[in-house]
């Protein structure tokens, strides 16, 4: 082989190496672009931000004197110009109808439009009207931005100095970026839809809460009339020797009271689910509340021939929490105990302690911290001011397998229980929710056939800011 030939081959090798190097540099630059555009799309829900990143990145790697991103809205037939950069400055171009630009062609074909020569004439043929104050292109590329099957915009490149300014690799890079803009547009549209759906849901939820509040009043008023008038008729029937009406009047009265209790439970649960339940804290004597709940439960206990024992230590003192929710919680558990026990004993024990000792597992949240609405929960320091209400019965008990679902809504043991004992199966779910709202909880220990013990632990004094009106 001659020296000359060898030199030629070496030169050839050098050149192809240089080309390879150039190509891999270009490739690296393109990958960098896609990385930053991809980042913009995933981290930004603002479409304009994504468009700015795409436009700026194109200017970095492609030698063009004008870079534009335009968006076409099929609904209005208008083309907007969210990004126009020309000869070193950003331009603000007003929206125009589709018919006044090459976009008609791009929208119709869905294909890139590449013009290497006679650019001005070709664009005019396609119906393009030059935007006043902008230069005339000698090389031109437009690639469509597609969302779904529909062309919704284009990315354009222009060179004002020379023909054949853009290579095939420029066009393929642009097509990749156009696909990215399409994804960003789709994201922005979905995000907007989701936001609108959420707003609509919030409005509907508010309407539901208002409806429930009104219904609460509308349902209770006639029920109170049924209950009240049946009581009056009972009194009058007794006094005026119509005692043969008494059993029926008593049934109306009992059914009315039961319906009122069910309506109240359903409305409480609906309010909990609508997220409109708030704490309304006041200072009151704990013993007063207990006596009121016991007075309500006593007729149920007596109806089933149960002994109701109440162990109230002196000096329980006053507490600061939600009177209605605590009363409701205690009444639910107490009336359950009286209902599910026959010829047995129901015992209520109340106490006030500096800490739940031993603190039951159910009084801890999933992180092992003690449930408490006050600073008592911090550092698992359970020293504080706690009240305990323990209700034990000698009733039918609850099988271990059914204990976990006891505090779920609609979870009475089985359908026959509902028929035999009445109730909605909502009471304990509402009670647990109320107890947790008040910074504590309720738990159960039970053995079938022997009886059940329900225990409520609550902070005696909630922080002042807990009260919401």
């Amino acid at each position, binding site marked *: 082989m001659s020296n000359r030939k060898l030199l030629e081959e070496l030169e050839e090798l050098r050149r192809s190496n240089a080309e390879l190097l150039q190509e891999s540099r270009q490739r690296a630059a393109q990958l960098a672009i896609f990385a930053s555009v991809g980042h913009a799309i995933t981290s930004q829900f603002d479409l304009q931000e994504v468009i700015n990143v795409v436009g700026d990145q194109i200017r970095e790697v492609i030698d063009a004197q004008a870079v534009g991103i335009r968006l076409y809205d099929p609904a209005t037939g208008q083309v907007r110009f969210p990004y126009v950069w020309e000869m070193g400055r950003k331009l603000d171009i007003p929206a125009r109808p589709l018919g006044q630009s090459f976009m008609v062609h791009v929208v119709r074909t869905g294909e890139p439009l590449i013009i290497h020569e006679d650019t001005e004439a070709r664009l005019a043929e396609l119906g393009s009207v030059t935007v006043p104050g902008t230069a005339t292109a000698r090389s031109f590329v437009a690639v469509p931005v597609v969302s779904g099957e529909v062309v919704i915009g284009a990315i354009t490149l222009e060179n004002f100095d020379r023909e054949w300014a853009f290579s095939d690799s420029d066009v393929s890079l642009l097509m990749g970026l156009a696909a990215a803009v399409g994804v960003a547009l789709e994201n922005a549209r979905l995000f907007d839809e989701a936001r609108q759906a959420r707003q609509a849901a919030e409005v509907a939820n508010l309407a539901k809460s208002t409806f429930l509040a009104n219904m609460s009043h509308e349902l209770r008023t006639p029920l*109170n009339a049924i209950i009240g*008038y049946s009581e*009056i008729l009972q*009194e009058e029937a007794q*006094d005026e020797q119509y005692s043969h009406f008494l059993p029926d009047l008593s049934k109306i009265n009992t059914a009315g009271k039961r319906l009122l209790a069910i309506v109240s439970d359903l409305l409480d649960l609906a309010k909990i689910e609508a997220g409109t339940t708030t704490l309304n804290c006041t200072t*009151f004597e704990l013993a007063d509340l207990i006596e009121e709940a016991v007075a309500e439960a006593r007729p149920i206990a007596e109806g089933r021939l149960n002994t109701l024992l109440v162990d109230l230590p002196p000096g329980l003192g006053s507490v600061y929490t939600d009177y*209605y929710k605590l009363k409701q919680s205690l009444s639910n558990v107490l009336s359950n105990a009286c209902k599910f026990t026959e010829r047995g004993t129901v015992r209520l024990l109340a106490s006030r302690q500096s800490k739940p000792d031993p603190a039951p597992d159910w009084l801890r949240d999933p992180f092992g911290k003690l449930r408490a609405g006050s600073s008592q929960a911090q550092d698992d320091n359970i020293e504080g001011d706690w009240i305990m209400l323990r209700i034990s019965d000698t009733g039918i008990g609850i099988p271990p397998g059914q204990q976990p679902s006891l505090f779920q809504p609609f979870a009475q043991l089985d359908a026959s229980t509902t028929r035999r004992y009445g109730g909605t199966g909502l009471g304990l779910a509402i009670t647990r929710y109320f107890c947790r709202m008040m910074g504590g909880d309720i738990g159960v220990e039970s053995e079938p056939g022997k009886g059940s013990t329900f225990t409520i632990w609550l902070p005696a004094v909630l922080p002042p800011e807990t009260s919401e009106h």
Partner: protein
Amino acid sequence: MAKILLVEDNEMNRDMLARRLERRGYTVVIAVDGGEGVARAREDDPDLILMDMSLPVLDGWEATRQIKADEATRAIPVIALTAHAMSGDKEKALAAGCDDYDTKPIELPRLLEKIETLLARKA
């Protein structure tokens, strides 16, 4: 027998409670809003007032304040009646000058006990 002024805007609640009190021998005078309640307290000289708290024209708290501010009616005991769900109403009622408090729906035996206690104290 004692005369009771019942201030209550709901017709059925008013009718039920008035009938049950009359059946037990009380004389019952009716007012349908807070303003009328204040006027009746002055004109009819009742022995006791049962005051609903959510009333039109003048609510029960303001009506009670006016009754307790007037030398002529100050001594008449007032029992506030409110919906049970409104905790905090007890304190508000006592602050307005009510002598006692009970919740609706009415438990008649409990209310009668409160009425008799206040009437006995007055006598």
